[in-house]
Protein backbone atom coordinates (compact mmCIF):
# COMPACT_ATOMS: atom_id res chain seq x y z
CA UNK A 1 0.00 0.00 0.00
CA UNK A 2 1.56 3.24 -1.13
CA UNK A 3 1.84 6.09 1.35
CA UNK A 4 -0.62 8.94 0.88
CA UNK A 5 0.73 12.48 1.02
CA UNK A 6 -0.56 14.56 3.91
CA UNK A 7 -2.70 17.60 3.27
CA UNK A 8 0.27 19.87 3.91
CA UNK A 9 2.36 17.87 1.47
CA UNK A 10 -0.39 18.14 -1.13
CA UNK A 11 -0.63 21.87 -0.60
CA UNK A 12 3.13 22.21 -0.96
CA UNK A 13 3.01 20.24 -4.21
CA UNK A 14 0.20 22.41 -5.46
CA UNK A 15 1.93 25.64 -4.60
CA UNK A 16 5.15 24.60 -6.33
CA UNK A 17 3.32 23.33 -9.42
CA UNK A 18 1.35 26.53 -9.63
CA UNK A 19 4.54 28.56 -9.28
CA UNK A 20 6.04 26.73 -12.25
CA UNK A 21 2.84 27.19 -14.25
CA UNK A 22 2.51 30.89 -13.55
CA UNK A 23 6.19 31.62 -14.11
CA UNK A 24 6.02 29.90 -17.46
CA UNK A 25 2.78 31.55 -18.49
CA UNK A 26 4.54 34.83 -17.89
CA UNK A 27 7.54 33.63 -19.89
CA UNK A 28 5.19 32.62 -22.69
CA UNK A 29 3.70 36.10 -22.75
CA UNK A 30 7.06 37.83 -22.55
CA UNK A 31 8.48 35.61 -25.28
CA UNK A 32 5.52 36.46 -27.50
CA UNK A 33 6.07 40.13 -26.75
CA UNK A 34 9.66 39.80 -27.90
CA UNK A 35 11.13 40.64 -24.50
CA UNK A 36 13.33 37.54 -24.19
CA UNK A 37 16.41 37.19 -26.37
CA UNK A 38 16.57 33.42 -26.86
CA UNK A 39 14.49 30.30 -27.31
CA UNK A 40 12.15 29.29 -24.50
CA UNK A 41 10.99 25.68 -24.08
CA UNK A 42 8.05 25.46 -21.73
CA UNK A 43 7.15 22.71 -19.30
CA UNK A 44 3.43 23.49 -19.14
CA UNK A 45 1.48 20.30 -18.58
CA UNK A 46 4.38 18.38 -17.03
CA UNK A 47 4.67 20.22 -13.71
CA UNK A 48 3.58 17.30 -11.55
CA UNK A 49 6.66 15.30 -12.45
CA UNK A 50 9.45 17.68 -11.47
CA UNK A 51 7.54 18.89 -8.45
CA UNK A 52 6.59 15.55 -6.97
CA UNK A 53 9.99 13.94 -7.67
CA UNK A 54 11.89 16.86 -6.13
CA UNK A 55 9.52 16.82 -3.15
CA UNK A 56 11.11 13.46 -2.36
CA UNK A 57 14.66 14.77 -2.50
CA UNK A 58 16.81 16.48 0.07
CA UNK A 59 18.74 19.71 -0.46
CA UNK A 60 22.00 17.84 -1.11
CA UNK A 61 20.56 15.47 -3.68
CA UNK A 62 21.50 16.19 -7.26
CA UNK A 63 19.46 16.53 -10.42
CA UNK A 64 20.15 16.94 -14.10
CA UNK A 65 17.52 18.55 -16.24
CA UNK A 66 16.72 19.11 -19.87
CA UNK A 67 16.30 21.97 -22.32
CA UNK A 68 12.77 22.15 -20.86
CA UNK A 69 14.23 22.83 -17.45
CA UNK A 70 12.44 25.70 -15.70
CA UNK A 71 10.21 23.28 -13.85
CA UNK A 72 13.07 21.19 -12.51
CA UNK A 73 14.94 24.30 -11.45
CA UNK A 74 12.00 25.69 -9.49
CA UNK A 75 10.97 22.31 -8.13
CA UNK A 76 14.43 21.70 -6.66
CA UNK A 77 14.33 25.05 -4.91
CA UNK A 78 15.87 27.36 -7.48
CA UNK A 79 15.18 31.05 -6.94
CA UNK A 80 12.44 32.43 -9.22
CA UNK A 81 14.08 35.86 -9.40
CA UNK A 82 17.48 34.48 -10.35
CA UNK A 83 15.86 32.25 -12.97
CA UNK A 84 13.82 35.06 -14.46
CA UNK A 85 16.83 37.38 -14.55
CA UNK A 86 18.83 34.64 -16.28
CA UNK A 87 16.23 34.26 -19.00
CA UNK A 88 16.19 38.04 -19.36
CA UNK A 89 20.00 37.86 -19.85
CA UNK A 90 20.78 39.96 -16.81
CA UNK A 91 23.89 39.91 -14.64
CA UNK A 92 21.78 39.05 -11.62
CA UNK A 93 20.73 35.84 -13.37
CA UNK A 94 21.56 32.55 -11.72
CA UNK A 95 24.24 32.04 -14.40
CA UNK A 96 25.03 35.75 -14.76
CA UNK A 97 23.26 35.75 -18.12
CA UNK A 98 25.76 33.32 -19.64
CA UNK A 99 23.41 30.34 -19.90
CA UNK A 100 19.87 31.52 -20.47
CA UNK A 101 16.66 29.55 -20.45
CA UNK A 102 18.21 26.29 -21.62
CA UNK A 103 20.93 26.27 -18.97
CA UNK A 104 19.44 27.37 -15.67
CA UNK A 105 21.51 25.77 -12.92
CA UNK A 106 22.16 26.22 -9.23
CA UNK A 107 24.94 23.94 -8.08
CA UNK A 108 24.47 25.08 -4.48
CA UNK A 109 21.05 23.46 -4.57
CA UNK A 110 22.13 20.33 -6.42
CA UNK A 111 20.72 21.56 -9.73
CA UNK A 112 23.47 20.52 -12.13
CA UNK A 113 21.84 22.30 -14.94
CA UNK A 114 19.29 22.25 -17.61
CA UNK A 115 21.00 21.03 -20.74
CA UNK A 116 20.73 22.02 -24.35
CA UNK A 117 21.87 18.61 -25.54
CA UNK A 118 19.04 16.09 -25.63
CA UNK A 119 20.32 13.23 -23.47
CA UNK A 120 23.16 15.37 -22.14
CA UNK A 121 22.16 14.78 -18.54
CA UNK A 122 22.27 10.98 -18.39
CA UNK A 123 25.99 10.58 -17.92
CA UNK A 124 26.30 13.66 -15.73
CA UNK A 125 23.71 12.26 -13.32
CA UNK A 126 25.38 8.85 -13.50
CA UNK A 127 28.73 10.42 -12.66
CA UNK A 128 27.22 12.37 -9.78
CA UNK A 129 25.78 9.10 -8.46
CA UNK A 130 29.18 7.46 -8.86
CA UNK A 131 30.77 10.25 -6.82
CA UNK A 132 28.13 9.90 -4.11
CA UNK A 133 28.88 6.19 -3.91
CA UNK A 134 32.65 6.57 -3.93
CA UNK A 135 32.61 9.39 -1.39
CA UNK A 136 30.33 7.29 0.83
CA UNK A 137 27.67 9.88 1.28
CA UNK A 138 23.92 9.40 1.04
CA UNK A 139 23.17 11.63 -1.93
CA UNK A 140 20.89 10.43 -4.67
CA UNK A 141 21.13 11.70 -8.20
CA UNK A 142 18.13 12.11 -10.48
CA UNK A 143 18.23 12.38 -14.27
CA UNK A 144 15.14 13.98 -15.76
CA UNK A 145 14.84 13.32 -19.49
CA UNK A 146 12.26 12.99 -22.20
CA UNK A 147 11.19 10.23 -24.53
CA UNK A 148 13.30 11.89 -27.21
CA UNK A 149 16.45 11.52 -25.13
CA UNK A 150 15.69 7.85 -24.56
CA UNK A 151 16.65 7.28 -28.19
CA UNK A 152 20.20 8.50 -27.59
CA UNK A 153 22.78 5.74 -27.28
CA UNK A 154 24.18 7.17 -24.06
CA UNK A 155 20.89 6.21 -22.39
CA UNK A 156 21.72 2.54 -22.83
CA UNK A 157 25.26 3.09 -21.64
CA UNK A 158 24.07 4.73 -18.44
CA UNK A 159 21.46 2.07 -17.77
CA UNK A 160 24.26 -0.48 -18.02
CA UNK A 161 26.81 1.36 -15.90
CA UNK A 162 24.39 2.43 -13.17
CA UNK A 163 22.90 -1.02 -12.84
CA UNK A 164 26.29 -2.74 -13.01
CA UNK A 165 27.73 -0.54 -10.25
CA UNK A 166 24.48 -0.20 -8.26
CA UNK A 167 24.63 3.58 -8.34
CA UNK A 168 22.19 5.76 -6.35
CA UNK A 169 20.50 7.03 -9.49
CA UNK A 170 16.85 7.64 -10.31
CA UNK A 171 16.01 7.92 -13.99
CA UNK A 172 12.81 9.83 -14.64
CA UNK A 173 11.56 9.63 -18.19
CA UNK A 174 8.99 12.32 -18.88
CA UNK A 175 7.24 10.78 -21.83
CA UNK A 176 5.65 13.89 -23.28
CA UNK A 177 4.95 12.26 -26.67
CA UNK A 178 7.26 14.41 -28.76
CA UNK A 179 10.87 14.47 -29.90
CA UNK A 180 11.04 18.13 -30.76
CA UNK A 181 8.59 18.24 -33.71
CA UNK A 182 8.28 14.50 -34.27
CA UNK A 183 5.64 12.41 -32.49
CA UNK A 184 7.29 9.75 -30.37
CA UNK A 185 5.35 6.99 -32.11
CA UNK A 186 7.18 7.86 -35.31
CA UNK A 187 10.65 7.54 -33.84
CA UNK A 188 10.52 5.18 -30.89
CA UNK A 189 10.37 1.40 -31.07
CA UNK A 190 8.88 -0.57 -28.23
CA UNK A 191 8.32 0.68 -24.71
CA UNK A 192 10.97 2.90 -23.15
CA UNK A 193 10.42 1.30 -19.75
CA UNK A 194 11.35 -2.06 -21.27
CA UNK A 195 14.79 -0.70 -22.00
CA UNK A 196 15.37 -0.17 -18.29
CA UNK A 197 13.84 -3.53 -17.42
CA UNK A 198 16.38 -5.21 -19.70
CA UNK A 199 19.08 -4.05 -17.27
CA UNK A 200 17.17 -5.42 -14.26
CA UNK A 201 16.37 -1.94 -13.03
CA UNK A 202 13.15 -1.66 -10.99
CA UNK A 203 10.77 0.17 -13.26
CA UNK A 204 7.39 1.73 -12.94
CA UNK A 205 5.13 3.39 -15.50
CA UNK A 206 2.79 6.00 -14.10
CA UNK A 207 0.40 8.77 -15.01
CA UNK A 208 2.74 11.75 -14.98
CA UNK A 209 -0.15 14.17 -14.75
CA UNK A 210 -1.17 12.75 -11.39
CA UNK A 211 0.99 14.47 -8.79
CA UNK A 212 0.16 11.91 -6.14
CA UNK A 213 1.09 8.98 -8.37
CA UNK A 214 4.41 10.66 -9.14
CA UNK A 215 4.99 11.46 -5.48
CA UNK A 216 4.40 7.84 -4.53
CA UNK A 217 6.53 6.34 -7.29
CA UNK A 218 9.33 8.82 -6.67
CA UNK A 219 9.31 8.08 -2.96
CA UNK A 220 9.88 4.40 -3.63
CA UNK A 221 12.46 5.02 -6.34
CA UNK A 222 14.48 7.46 -4.26
CA UNK A 223 14.38 5.15 -1.26
CA UNK A 224 15.55 2.25 -3.42
CA UNK A 225 18.43 4.26 -4.83
CA UNK A 226 19.44 5.67 -1.45
CA UNK A 227 19.45 2.24 0.13
CA UNK A 228 22.37 1.22 -2.07
CA UNK A 229 20.31 -1.24 -4.09
CA UNK A 230 21.05 0.51 -7.37
CA UNK A 231 19.15 2.66 -9.81
CA UNK A 232 15.39 2.93 -10.24
CA UNK A 233 13.43 3.96 -13.29
CA UNK A 234 10.17 5.87 -13.63
CA UNK A 235 8.37 6.43 -16.88
CA UNK A 236 5.85 9.21 -16.33
CA UNK A 237 3.34 9.52 -19.17
CA UNK A 238 2.48 13.10 -19.87
CA UNK A 239 1.94 15.53 -22.71
CA UNK A 240 3.71 18.64 -23.92
CA UNK A 241 0.95 21.24 -24.11
CA UNK A 242 3.12 23.97 -25.62
CA UNK A 243 5.18 23.64 -28.76
CA UNK A 244 8.73 22.37 -28.75
CA UNK A 245 9.65 26.00 -28.25
CA UNK A 246 7.74 29.25 -28.15
CA UNK A 247 7.29 30.85 -31.54
CA UNK A 248 7.53 27.43 -33.14
CA UNK A 249 5.10 28.59 -35.83
CA UNK A 250 8.01 30.52 -37.33
CA UNK A 251 9.86 27.27 -37.83
CA UNK A 252 6.88 25.21 -38.87
CA UNK A 253 5.83 27.64 -41.62
CA UNK A 254 2.35 26.13 -41.70
CA UNK A 255 3.61 22.58 -41.17
CA UNK A 256 1.79 20.45 -38.63
CA UNK A 257 2.84 17.58 -36.39
CA UNK A 258 -0.21 17.18 -34.16
CA UNK A 259 -3.92 17.92 -34.05
CA UNK A 260 -5.39 20.72 -31.93
CA UNK A 261 -7.99 18.24 -30.69
CA UNK A 262 -5.21 16.16 -29.16
CA UNK A 263 -3.95 19.16 -27.22
CA UNK A 264 -7.47 19.92 -26.02
CA UNK A 265 -7.92 16.34 -24.94
CA UNK A 266 -4.78 16.52 -22.80
CA UNK A 267 -5.83 19.86 -21.33
CA UNK A 268 -8.64 17.91 -19.70
CA UNK A 269 -5.96 16.04 -17.75
CA UNK A 270 -4.12 19.15 -16.61
CA UNK A 271 -2.00 18.17 -13.60
CA UNK A 272 -2.44 21.48 -11.77
CA UNK A 273 -6.22 21.42 -12.11
CA UNK A 274 -6.39 17.79 -11.10
CA UNK A 275 -4.47 18.48 -7.92
CA UNK A 276 -6.63 21.49 -7.24
CA UNK A 277 -9.77 19.36 -7.58
CA UNK A 278 -8.29 16.82 -5.25
CA UNK A 279 -7.53 19.49 -2.67
CA UNK A 280 -11.03 20.92 -2.95
CA UNK A 281 -12.55 17.47 -2.58
CA UNK A 282 -10.47 16.88 0.54
CA UNK A 283 -11.89 20.02 2.13
CA UNK A 284 -9.35 22.72 1.31
CA UNK A 285 -11.20 25.99 1.11
CA UNK A 286 -11.36 28.12 -1.99
CA UNK A 287 -10.00 31.04 0.00
CA UNK A 288 -6.87 29.04 0.85
CA UNK A 289 -6.30 28.22 -2.80
CA UNK A 290 -6.86 31.85 -3.69
CA UNK A 291 -4.29 32.86 -1.12
CA UNK A 292 -1.77 30.55 -2.77
CA UNK A 293 -2.65 31.99 -6.15
CA UNK A 294 -2.16 35.52 -4.87
CA UNK A 295 1.17 34.67 -3.24
CA UNK A 296 2.46 33.15 -6.45
CA UNK A 297 1.19 36.07 -8.46
CA UNK A 298 3.35 38.34 -6.31
CA UNK A 299 6.35 36.04 -6.65
CA UNK A 300 6.06 36.13 -10.42
CA UNK A 301 5.62 39.89 -10.50
CA UNK A 302 8.59 40.36 -8.19
CA UNK A 303 10.69 38.08 -10.37
CA UNK A 304 9.81 39.94 -13.54
CA UNK A 305 10.38 43.31 -11.90
CA UNK A 306 13.74 42.14 -10.59
CA UNK A 307 14.71 40.87 -14.04
CA UNK A 308 13.55 43.99 -15.83
CA UNK A 309 15.35 46.32 -13.46
CA UNK A 310 18.62 44.38 -13.31
CA UNK A 311 21.73 45.41 -15.20
CA UNK A 312 22.40 43.67 -18.49
CA UNK A 313 24.95 40.85 -18.44
CA UNK A 314 28.62 41.80 -18.40
CA UNK A 315 29.72 41.25 -22.00
CA UNK A 316 33.36 40.84 -20.95
CA UNK A 317 32.54 38.01 -18.55
CA UNK A 318 33.13 35.15 -21.01
CA UNK A 319 36.86 35.91 -21.02
CA UNK A 320 36.98 35.22 -17.30
CA UNK A 321 34.65 32.24 -17.26
CA UNK A 322 36.17 29.88 -19.80
CA UNK A 323 38.47 28.65 -17.05
CA UNK A 324 38.87 28.85 -13.32
CA UNK A 325 41.62 31.36 -12.57
CA UNK A 326 42.82 31.61 -16.15
CA UNK A 327 41.76 34.27 -18.62
CA UNK A 328 40.78 33.12 -22.10
Amino acid sequence: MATEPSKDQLLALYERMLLIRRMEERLRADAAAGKLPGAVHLYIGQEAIATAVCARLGPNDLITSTHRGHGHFLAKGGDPKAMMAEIWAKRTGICQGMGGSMHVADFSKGILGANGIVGGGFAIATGAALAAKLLHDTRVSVAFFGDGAANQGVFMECLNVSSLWKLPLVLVCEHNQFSEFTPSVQCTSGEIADRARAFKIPTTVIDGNDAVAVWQAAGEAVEHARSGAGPAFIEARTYRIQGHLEAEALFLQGGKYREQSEIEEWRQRDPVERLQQRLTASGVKGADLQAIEARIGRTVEDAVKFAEESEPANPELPFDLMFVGQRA
Partner: protein
Amino acid sequence: MARKRYTHAINEALIEEMSRDPKVIVYGEDVELAIMGDTRGLLDKFGRERIRNTPICEATLTGMAVGAAAAGCRVIVHMMFSNFIYTGFDAIANQMAKLHLMTGGQAVMPITIIAAYGGGGSNAAQHSDSGYPVLVNLGGVNVAMPATPADAKGLLKTAIRGNNPTFFMEAIGRGGELGEVPDGDYTVPFGKAATVREGKHVTLIAIGSMLKPTLEAAKKLEAAGIEAEVIDPRTLVPLDEEALVAAARKTGRVVVVDEARDRCSCASHIAAVLADKAFGHLKAPIKRVTVPNVCMPYAPNAEKLMIPDADRIARTATESARA
Protein backbone atom coordinates in the same frame (compact mmCIF):
# COMPACT_ATOMS: atom_id res chain seq x y z
CA MET B 1 67.33 13.33 -10.33
CA ALA B 2 66.89 9.81 -11.61
CA ARG B 3 66.48 8.41 -15.09
CA LYS B 4 62.95 7.17 -15.62
CA ARG B 5 60.78 6.11 -18.48
CA TYR B 6 57.98 8.39 -19.70
CA THR B 7 55.28 5.88 -18.73
CA HIS B 8 56.89 5.35 -15.33
CA ALA B 9 56.90 9.10 -14.67
CA ILE B 10 53.18 9.25 -15.46
CA ASN B 11 52.55 6.29 -13.20
CA GLU B 12 54.43 8.01 -10.36
CA ALA B 13 52.38 11.16 -10.78
CA LEU B 14 49.17 9.15 -10.57
CA ILE B 15 50.27 7.30 -7.45
CA GLU B 16 51.52 10.42 -5.73
CA GLU B 17 48.41 12.46 -6.50
CA MET B 18 46.05 9.66 -5.50
CA SER B 19 47.96 9.32 -2.23
CA ARG B 20 47.85 13.05 -1.70
CA ASP B 21 44.12 13.52 -2.26
CA PRO B 22 41.56 10.79 -1.49
CA LYS B 23 39.06 12.44 -3.82
CA VAL B 24 41.15 11.61 -6.89
CA ILE B 25 39.62 8.71 -8.83
CA VAL B 26 40.67 7.01 -12.04
CA TYR B 27 38.50 5.09 -14.44
CA GLY B 28 38.62 3.92 -18.00
CA GLU B 29 38.71 0.88 -20.20
CA ASP B 30 41.16 -1.74 -18.93
CA VAL B 31 42.88 0.57 -16.47
CA GLU B 32 42.99 -2.12 -13.79
CA LEU B 33 45.33 -4.28 -15.83
CA ALA B 34 47.13 -1.14 -17.00
CA ILE B 35 46.95 -2.02 -20.66
CA MET B 36 48.55 1.33 -21.50
CA GLY B 37 51.18 0.86 -18.78
CA ASP B 38 50.62 4.10 -16.94
CA THR B 39 48.08 2.85 -14.38
CA ARG B 40 50.18 -0.12 -13.23
CA GLY B 41 49.89 -0.95 -9.55
CA LEU B 42 47.06 1.46 -8.82
CA LEU B 43 44.47 -1.24 -8.20
CA ASP B 44 46.61 -2.97 -5.56
CA LYS B 45 47.43 0.31 -3.91
CA PHE B 46 44.06 2.04 -3.99
CA GLY B 47 41.37 -0.58 -4.70
CA ARG B 48 38.34 -0.43 -6.96
CA GLU B 49 36.83 2.53 -5.12
CA ARG B 50 39.59 4.66 -6.59
CA ILE B 51 40.40 2.97 -9.87
CA ARG B 52 38.03 0.89 -11.91
CA ASN B 53 37.51 -0.66 -15.29
CA THR B 54 34.54 0.61 -17.20
CA PRO B 55 32.48 -0.79 -20.01
CA ILE B 56 33.42 0.46 -23.46
CA CYS B 57 31.18 3.52 -23.50
CA GLU B 58 33.13 6.69 -24.07
CA ALA B 59 30.07 8.95 -24.23
CA THR B 60 29.31 7.94 -20.66
CA LEU B 61 32.91 8.02 -19.45
CA THR B 62 33.33 11.66 -20.38
CA GLY B 63 29.85 12.60 -19.20
CA MET B 64 30.33 10.85 -15.87
CA ALA B 65 33.46 12.87 -15.35
CA VAL B 66 31.36 16.04 -15.44
CA GLY B 67 28.87 14.68 -12.92
CA ALA B 68 31.46 13.15 -10.62
CA ALA B 69 33.45 16.39 -10.64
CA ALA B 70 30.30 18.39 -9.90
CA ALA B 71 29.60 16.06 -6.99
CA GLY B 72 33.04 16.43 -5.44
CA CYS B 73 35.54 14.04 -7.04
CA ARG B 74 38.75 14.88 -8.85
CA VAL B 75 38.35 12.73 -11.89
CA ILE B 76 40.95 11.14 -14.12
CA VAL B 77 39.52 9.44 -17.18
CA HIS B 78 41.79 7.25 -19.25
CA MET B 79 40.58 7.26 -22.84
CA MET B 80 43.28 4.87 -24.06
CA PHE B 81 43.80 6.07 -27.65
CA SER B 82 43.08 9.66 -28.53
CA ASN B 83 40.81 8.52 -31.35
CA PHE B 84 38.35 7.39 -28.69
CA ILE B 85 37.95 11.00 -27.64
CA TYR B 86 35.75 11.28 -30.73
CA THR B 87 33.26 8.71 -29.43
CA GLY B 88 33.13 10.57 -26.13
CA PHE B 89 33.00 14.00 -27.63
CA ASP B 90 29.59 15.35 -26.62
CA ALA B 91 30.37 15.62 -22.95
CA ILE B 92 33.78 17.04 -23.78
CA ALA B 93 32.72 19.67 -26.29
CA ASN B 94 29.23 20.48 -25.07
CA GLN B 95 29.54 19.93 -21.35
CA MET B 96 32.94 20.10 -19.70
CA ALA B 97 34.36 22.74 -22.03
CA LYS B 98 31.38 25.01 -21.57
CA LEU B 99 29.81 24.44 -18.18
CA HIS B 100 31.93 26.89 -16.22
CA LEU B 101 30.85 29.69 -18.52
CA MET B 102 27.27 28.51 -19.04
CA THR B 103 26.65 28.32 -15.31
CA GLY B 104 28.11 31.74 -14.68
CA GLY B 105 31.13 30.23 -12.96
CA GLN B 106 29.27 27.77 -10.72
CA ALA B 107 30.51 24.56 -12.29
CA VAL B 108 34.10 23.70 -11.45
CA MET B 109 35.44 20.75 -13.38
CA PRO B 110 38.61 19.16 -11.95
CA ILE B 111 38.88 16.60 -14.72
CA THR B 112 41.99 15.15 -16.33
CA ILE B 113 41.58 13.11 -19.47
CA ILE B 114 44.54 10.99 -20.47
CA ALA B 115 44.82 9.86 -24.07
CA ALA B 116 47.66 8.48 -26.14
CA TYR B 117 48.15 9.99 -29.56
CA GLY B 118 50.26 9.61 -32.62
CA GLY B 119 51.47 7.07 -35.11
CA GLY B 120 54.48 4.93 -35.65
CA GLY B 121 53.18 1.56 -34.59
CA SER B 122 51.15 0.47 -37.60
CA ASN B 123 48.00 0.97 -35.58
CA ALA B 124 46.27 2.33 -38.67
CA ALA B 125 43.94 5.29 -39.01
CA GLN B 126 41.58 4.71 -36.07
CA HIS B 127 44.34 4.40 -33.46
CA SER B 128 46.93 6.89 -34.66
CA ASP B 129 45.36 10.33 -34.72
CA SER B 130 46.88 13.30 -32.98
CA GLY B 131 43.47 14.61 -32.08
CA TYR B 132 44.47 17.65 -30.04
CA PRO B 133 43.87 20.52 -32.51
CA VAL B 134 40.13 20.00 -32.16
CA LEU B 135 40.50 20.14 -28.39
CA VAL B 136 42.50 23.34 -28.61
CA ASN B 137 39.67 24.87 -30.60
CA LEU B 138 37.05 24.11 -27.94
CA GLY B 139 38.10 26.99 -25.75
CA GLY B 140 37.32 25.64 -22.30
CA VAL B 141 39.81 22.79 -21.92
CA ASN B 142 43.51 22.88 -21.24
CA VAL B 143 45.76 20.73 -23.41
CA ALA B 144 49.07 19.47 -22.04
CA MET B 145 51.60 17.91 -24.41
CA PRO B 146 54.46 16.46 -22.38
CA ALA B 147 57.48 15.53 -24.46
CA THR B 148 59.77 14.26 -21.71
CA PRO B 149 59.39 12.08 -18.60
CA ALA B 150 60.01 15.07 -16.32
CA ASP B 151 57.37 17.18 -18.01
CA ALA B 152 54.98 14.23 -18.11
CA LYS B 153 55.11 13.90 -14.36
CA GLY B 154 55.05 17.61 -13.60
CA LEU B 155 52.31 18.50 -16.06
CA LEU B 156 50.11 15.61 -14.95
CA LYS B 157 50.34 16.75 -11.35
CA THR B 158 49.37 20.27 -12.37
CA ALA B 159 46.44 18.85 -14.33
CA ILE B 160 45.18 16.71 -11.46
CA ARG B 161 45.49 19.51 -8.90
CA GLY B 162 43.90 22.07 -11.20
CA ASN B 163 40.25 23.03 -11.38
CA ASN B 164 39.84 23.02 -15.15
CA PRO B 165 39.22 20.15 -17.55
CA THR B 166 42.58 19.19 -18.96
CA PHE B 167 43.66 16.82 -21.67
CA PHE B 168 46.92 15.13 -20.90
CA MET B 169 48.15 13.85 -24.21
CA GLU B 170 50.59 10.97 -24.04
CA ALA B 171 52.95 10.61 -26.95
CA ILE B 172 52.34 6.98 -27.83
CA GLY B 173 55.76 6.32 -29.26
CA ARG B 174 57.58 7.85 -26.31
CA GLY B 175 56.38 5.59 -23.46
CA GLY B 176 59.61 3.67 -23.16
CA GLU B 177 61.94 6.61 -23.48
CA LEU B 178 64.17 7.59 -20.61
CA GLY B 179 64.80 11.00 -19.18
CA GLU B 180 65.94 12.71 -16.01
CA VAL B 181 63.09 13.17 -13.56
CA PRO B 182 63.49 15.41 -10.49
CA ASP B 183 63.18 13.74 -7.10
CA GLY B 184 60.36 14.55 -4.74
CA ASP B 185 57.20 16.48 -5.36
CA TYR B 186 57.28 18.99 -8.17
CA THR B 187 54.89 20.40 -10.73
CA VAL B 188 55.34 21.97 -14.14
CA PRO B 189 53.19 25.07 -14.64
CA PHE B 190 50.82 25.36 -17.59
CA GLY B 191 51.52 28.02 -20.18
CA LYS B 192 55.30 28.02 -19.77
CA ALA B 193 57.29 26.94 -22.80
CA ALA B 194 60.71 25.36 -22.33
CA THR B 195 63.77 26.37 -24.28
CA VAL B 196 65.30 22.98 -24.84
CA ARG B 197 68.24 24.14 -26.88
CA GLU B 198 69.75 27.54 -27.58
CA GLY B 199 70.61 28.61 -31.11
CA LYS B 200 70.77 31.75 -33.21
CA HIS B 201 70.05 30.75 -36.80
CA VAL B 202 66.62 29.16 -36.79
CA THR B 203 63.88 28.55 -34.22
CA LEU B 204 62.30 25.09 -34.15
CA ILE B 205 59.04 24.86 -32.20
CA ALA B 206 58.36 21.22 -31.41
CA ILE B 207 55.00 20.02 -30.07
CA GLY B 208 54.85 16.94 -27.84
CA SER B 209 56.01 13.83 -29.63
CA MET B 210 57.90 15.95 -32.14
CA LEU B 211 60.51 17.16 -29.67
CA LYS B 212 62.66 14.07 -30.10
CA PRO B 213 62.98 14.16 -33.90
CA THR B 214 63.37 17.93 -33.70
CA LEU B 215 66.36 17.58 -31.35
CA GLU B 216 67.82 15.00 -33.73
CA ALA B 217 67.32 17.46 -36.55
CA ALA B 218 69.07 20.16 -34.51
CA LYS B 219 72.11 17.90 -34.25
CA LYS B 220 72.14 17.36 -37.99
CA LEU B 221 71.84 21.11 -38.50
CA GLU B 222 74.71 21.73 -36.12
CA ALA B 223 76.90 19.49 -38.23
CA ALA B 224 75.95 21.68 -41.19
CA GLY B 225 76.81 24.84 -39.28
CA ILE B 226 73.24 25.87 -38.45
CA GLU B 227 72.53 26.56 -34.79
CA ALA B 228 68.92 25.79 -34.04
CA GLU B 229 66.94 27.08 -31.08
CA VAL B 230 64.43 24.44 -29.96
CA ILE B 231 61.33 25.46 -28.03
CA ASP B 232 58.74 23.11 -26.54
CA PRO B 233 55.43 24.88 -25.74
CA ARG B 234 54.56 22.05 -23.28
CA THR B 235 50.93 23.13 -23.16
CA LEU B 236 48.89 24.21 -26.17
CA VAL B 237 46.17 25.66 -23.96
CA PRO B 238 47.28 27.83 -22.33
CA LEU B 239 49.88 28.72 -24.95
CA ASP B 240 53.02 30.62 -23.99
CA GLU B 241 52.75 33.08 -26.85
CA GLU B 242 55.27 35.41 -25.26
CA ALA B 243 58.05 32.82 -25.28
CA LEU B 244 57.25 31.68 -28.80
CA VAL B 245 57.19 35.23 -30.12
CA ALA B 246 60.49 36.02 -28.38
CA ALA B 247 62.08 32.90 -29.87
CA ALA B 248 60.77 33.80 -33.32
CA ARG B 249 62.14 37.32 -33.04
CA LYS B 250 65.49 36.01 -31.87
CA THR B 251 66.31 34.16 -35.09
CA GLY B 252 63.74 35.55 -37.51
CA ARG B 253 63.32 32.06 -38.97
CA VAL B 254 60.71 29.63 -37.63
CA VAL B 255 59.76 26.02 -38.25
CA VAL B 256 56.85 24.56 -36.30
CA VAL B 257 56.75 20.79 -35.96
CA ASP B 258 53.47 19.04 -35.14
CA GLU B 259 52.27 15.45 -35.46
CA ALA B 260 48.77 16.65 -36.29
CA ARG B 261 47.39 16.82 -39.81
CA ASP B 262 48.46 20.07 -41.39
CA ARG B 263 45.08 21.69 -41.98
CA CYS B 264 44.14 23.65 -38.85
CA SER B 265 46.94 21.97 -36.94
CA CYS B 266 48.45 23.55 -33.85
CA ALA B 267 51.45 24.36 -36.05
CA SER B 268 49.07 26.40 -38.22
CA HIS B 269 47.79 28.26 -35.20
CA ILE B 270 51.26 28.99 -33.87
CA ALA B 271 52.36 30.11 -37.34
CA ALA B 272 49.39 32.48 -37.46
CA VAL B 273 50.20 33.92 -34.03
CA LEU B 274 53.84 34.46 -35.02
CA ALA B 275 52.93 35.98 -38.37
CA ASP B 276 50.81 38.42 -36.43
CA LYS B 277 53.13 39.22 -33.55
CA ALA B 278 56.64 38.72 -34.92
CA PHE B 279 56.13 39.78 -38.53
CA GLY B 280 58.60 42.64 -38.50
CA HIS B 281 61.36 40.34 -37.27
CA LEU B 282 60.86 37.50 -39.71
CA LYS B 283 63.52 36.92 -42.34
CA ALA B 284 61.83 33.95 -43.98
CA PRO B 285 58.33 32.51 -44.29
CA ILE B 286 57.21 30.50 -41.26
CA LYS B 287 57.30 26.81 -42.17
CA ARG B 288 55.22 23.95 -40.82
CA VAL B 289 56.37 20.33 -40.66
CA THR B 290 53.25 18.28 -40.06
CA VAL B 291 51.39 15.16 -41.08
CA PRO B 292 49.92 15.58 -44.57
CA ASN B 293 46.13 15.87 -44.82
CA VAL B 294 45.66 12.11 -44.94
CA CYS B 295 44.60 9.40 -42.51
CA MET B 296 47.44 7.44 -41.02
CA PRO B 297 48.10 4.40 -43.21
CA TYR B 298 48.84 0.94 -41.85
CA ALA B 299 51.83 -0.01 -44.00
CA PRO B 300 55.03 0.94 -42.13
CA ASN B 301 56.65 2.45 -45.20
CA ALA B 302 53.61 4.62 -45.87
CA GLU B 303 53.22 5.57 -42.22
CA LYS B 304 56.87 6.59 -41.96
CA LEU B 305 56.39 8.94 -44.88
CA MET B 306 53.56 10.77 -43.09
CA ILE B 307 55.10 11.40 -39.67
CA PRO B 308 57.63 14.24 -39.49
CA ASP B 309 61.12 12.87 -38.88
CA ALA B 310 64.53 14.40 -38.26
CA ASP B 311 65.41 14.45 -41.95
CA ARG B 312 62.26 16.31 -42.99
CA ILE B 313 62.59 18.76 -40.09
CA ALA B 314 66.29 19.37 -40.86
CA ARG B 315 65.58 19.85 -44.54
CA THR B 316 62.86 22.39 -43.87
CA ALA B 317 64.98 24.16 -41.27
CA THR B 318 67.89 24.35 -43.69
CA GLU B 319 65.65 25.91 -46.33
CA SER B 320 64.42 28.39 -43.77
CA ALA B 321 67.92 29.22 -42.54
CA ARG B 322 69.12 29.82 -46.08
CA ALA B 323 66.08 31.64 -47.34
